[in-house]
């Protein structure tokens, strides 16, 4: 059963691979007591943001560089780690509030905000590369 609780993927740093990774991760979580909204909105959007950041900012869309994704289903949550070869960033300093009057009409600046709004925990740390870790708890398993 351990194999069904983890998933490891590696993709070139190309945006076209995002949908496939998201679909694979959502598929792996289906049937593990997450609710419909978590699988249709929270996880797909937060993971898309993490992958997009890794591809565009971390790896500068250099297709020779890989983005590594590790998924672990625990008893109460799914933990997804997205790792790139970038220098990392300060999560708090980089998170803007896109809902303020001065930001609402900006085209960019919503990615980290959405990530943090849609999953229970977002962490950023150095592993072999720069890692963003998303934790989404199953309903009824609040931290």
């Amino acid at each position, binding site marked *: 059963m351990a194999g069904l609780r983890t998933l490891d993927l590696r993709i070139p740093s190309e945006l076209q691979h995002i949908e496939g990774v998201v679909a694979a991760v959502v598929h792996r979580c289906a049937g593990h007591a997450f609710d419909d909204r978590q699988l249709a909105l929270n996880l797909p959007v937060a993971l898309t943001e993490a992958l997009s950041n890794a591809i565009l900012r971390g790896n500068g869309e250099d297709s020779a560089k890989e983005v590594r994704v590790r998924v672990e289903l625990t008893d109460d949550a799914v933990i997804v780690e997205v790792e790139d070869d970038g220098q990392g960033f300060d999560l708090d300093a980089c998170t803007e509030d896109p809902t303020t009057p001065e930001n609402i009409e*900006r085209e960019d600046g919503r990615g980290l905000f959405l990530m943090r709004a849609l999953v229970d925990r977002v962490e950023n740390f150095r592993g072999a590369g720069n890692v963003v870790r998303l934790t989404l708890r199953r309903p009824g398993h609040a931290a």
Partner: protein
Amino acid sequence: MPLHVSRQGDVVIVEIEGQLIVSNRQELKQRVLDEAETGGRKILVDFSRTGYIDSAGLGVLVSLAKRLRELGGDIRLANLNDDLQTLFELTKLDTLFQIADSKERALETF
């Protein structure tokens, strides 16, 4: 993300099938700007067959709204499911767009 484009009167209806995300947002942007260039400046985006939207997809909608309003046109959104409605509320973009629960109601607001 297939785009299905049709016209009703002077309104261009763009139906987005699948996800609207960073990898395909330019396709929507270019298609709408192409329509605007040829006079189609009232745009109705129909989300009835849309899955999820990321920040880049939301950003393109914001950008298109600004451009269309500069040109004297506007944009309306229709048929957002509950998840997508939540996304617009979280980001307060529900205050920037007129959102209708059907194409017909959206058409009435132009």
